[in-house]
């Protein structure tokens, strides 16, 4: 109770300051920084302000599971162990997968045996099957921890997220909009507040997205419950609980920090990769096709 009273005291003081005018507000001492006493910037109704440009750091976009580094995203058998597949061989060290302790509670995705088999097939044929390769909308949660920034636009009534990768977007509906009326690559997101945490329930997926570059598929029964909690002025603690009775034996959870992009000129740049994959997808249909492989 004591800390609640303190928060409400700080809150009232902040309002009083705002009413007293900008000069006083500017003159007020900065509120305490990180730690248990951290007080986020808030809207008039007390909701934390998540506005900003954010980005995950780590190797979850390669592989959400705990993993050591490997030579390539797609492997073939070699005389003494796996080697990079022909399709990715030329990339050398650039095409290698950095290791990571994983972002999953327990380290592994609880796939059913059949689903685990499909994941292995997906890995073996990664370059053909990963929707990221073709610049398809990445879905959730993958969009959150791709190696690209995203921007949260939040005001008193709305939360909207734009992602740099493929120019993907998500409205987080802050009201009951009913069940999804159609399926979507990015699903349908409905948000609510659990104290200072933004909780987003995402359903209505089309089942064609993955979680990472390691073949981690799901079905259109996927349900993701995300939690965004400001943990300091410049980082959000992100959690997502993932359910899909089609492929998982139980719900599982990922978590990671999302960091504020601190550069003064940080912004969401154009990354319309549709243009970048035209040669891959349509190049063979040119009137005068260019060579399509290293052997040509």
């Amino acid at each position, binding site marked *: 109770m004591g800390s609640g009273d303190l928060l409400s005291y700080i809150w009232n003081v902040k309002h009083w300051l705002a009413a007293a005018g900008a000069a006083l507000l500017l003159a007020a001492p900065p509120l305490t920084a990180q730690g248990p006493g951290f007080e986020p910037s808030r809207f008039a109704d007390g909701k934390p302000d998540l506005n900003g440009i954010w980005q995950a750091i780590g190797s979850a976009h390669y592989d959400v599971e705990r993993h050591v580094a490997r030579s390539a995203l797609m492997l073939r058998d070699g005389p003494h162990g796996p080697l990079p597949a022909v399709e990715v061989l030329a990339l050398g060290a650039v095409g290698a997968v950095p290791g990571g302790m994983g972002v999953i509670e327990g380290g592994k995705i609880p796939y059913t045996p059949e689903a685990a088999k499909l994941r292995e097939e997906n890995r073996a044929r990664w370059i053909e099957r990963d929707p990221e390769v073709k610049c398809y909308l990445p879905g959730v949660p993958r969009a959150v921890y791709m190696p690209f920034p995203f*921007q949260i636009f939040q005001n008193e009534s709305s939360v909207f997220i734009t992602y740099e990768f493929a120019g993907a977007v998500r409205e987080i509906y802050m009201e009951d909009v009913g069940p999804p009326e159609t399926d979507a690559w990015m699903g349908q997101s409905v948000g609510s507040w659990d104290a200072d945490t933004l909780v987003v329930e995402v359903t209505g997926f089309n089942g064609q997205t993955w979680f990472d570059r390691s073949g981690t598929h799901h079905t259109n029964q996927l349900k993701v419950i995300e939690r965004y909690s400001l943990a300091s002025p410049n980082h959000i603690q992100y959690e997502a609980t993932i359910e899909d009775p089609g492929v998982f034996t139980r719900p599982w959870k990922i978590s990671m920090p999302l960091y504020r992009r601190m550069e003064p000129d940080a*912004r969401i740049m154009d990354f319309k990769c549709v243009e970048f994959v035209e040669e891959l997808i349509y190049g063979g249909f040119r009137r005068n096709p260019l060579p399509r492989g290293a052997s040509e």
Partner: protein
Amino acid sequence: MRIRVLIACGVLWVPVWATAADDMPRTPSGRPDFSGTYDIATLTPLQRPERYGDKLTLTEDEAAALANREATYIAGRNAPTDPERAAPPQGGDGSTGAAGNVGGYNAFWIDRGSGGFQIDGKWRTSIITDPANGRRPPLTKAGTAAAARRAKMYRPNKGEAWWIKEGVEPGPYDDPELRPLAERCLLGFGSTGGPPMLPVLYNNLKRIVQTDDHLMILVEMVHDARIVRMNAEHAPDDVRSWLGDSVGHWEGDTLVIDTTNFTDRPALSGATRNLHVVERFSRLDEDTLLYQFTVEDPTVWTAPWSGEYAWPATSSRVYEYACHEANYSFGGILRGARILEQEALAQTDDD
């Protein structure tokens, strides 16, 4: 610089707040709040039909006729097909418009609104207001030449490789890069993403989320999010983007957006990388925004041109517009051209 901006804002901002005795939705910081979803479809054309001359407004009867014409057209297109009708002829039935020569789209897809728009209680003849004739100003010499090149390249598909017969190199379907941006799912068509953002045949929703620092405008078609940075400087000249670089500032209760730094192919047909667009958002009433714009591209047009139209709020939600992910037609277009070329070359061999 930053301090000067802050001071300038303060001077403008305080009196606005003090006199805000209207019903206009406002943000806690006292600015007009433009957040919402808008259906900008309108039957009023961008360019004024020449018969209206310099006449800016329509009578009630003329406006009703405009709405009736569309309603009749849509009702006709929605009528059940004659079950006894014969198959369309090979190569299409010659029909024009969005349905194309082979009936690609029926009226279900088309949503250009049910009427024109009003400003201050008057129906308009066109979106363009300047020049006074409601039409784009004359093209420059370079603009004329570019338009002629486009007209030569983009022709209705008559089922033959005319570019082979006429020896046009490169042909219009030679490479993906030569096709219109909308066909490639890079941008929506008809400057729906803009700027200037113009009404098009369908998917006319715009979603605005306004914060103190940014205005985010989601363009329904191709899920393009325009991010307007408030009181910011433009990106360096070599940082170019498809929808341009947009920065905003307030002039009283009007939000002014300045956009430059376009690529070589802006959404606005005919425009070049030298395009400069100024857009102004203000409020007509509680449910309607006024959207105004001025277009400047001295490479293409001999004078700037301006327009305005109403953006009515809607309770519709914006669904995902995943264009590229299901763009089966683009590969089909290119492969179709390859087949037509083979046919044309075979014919030439026969001759």
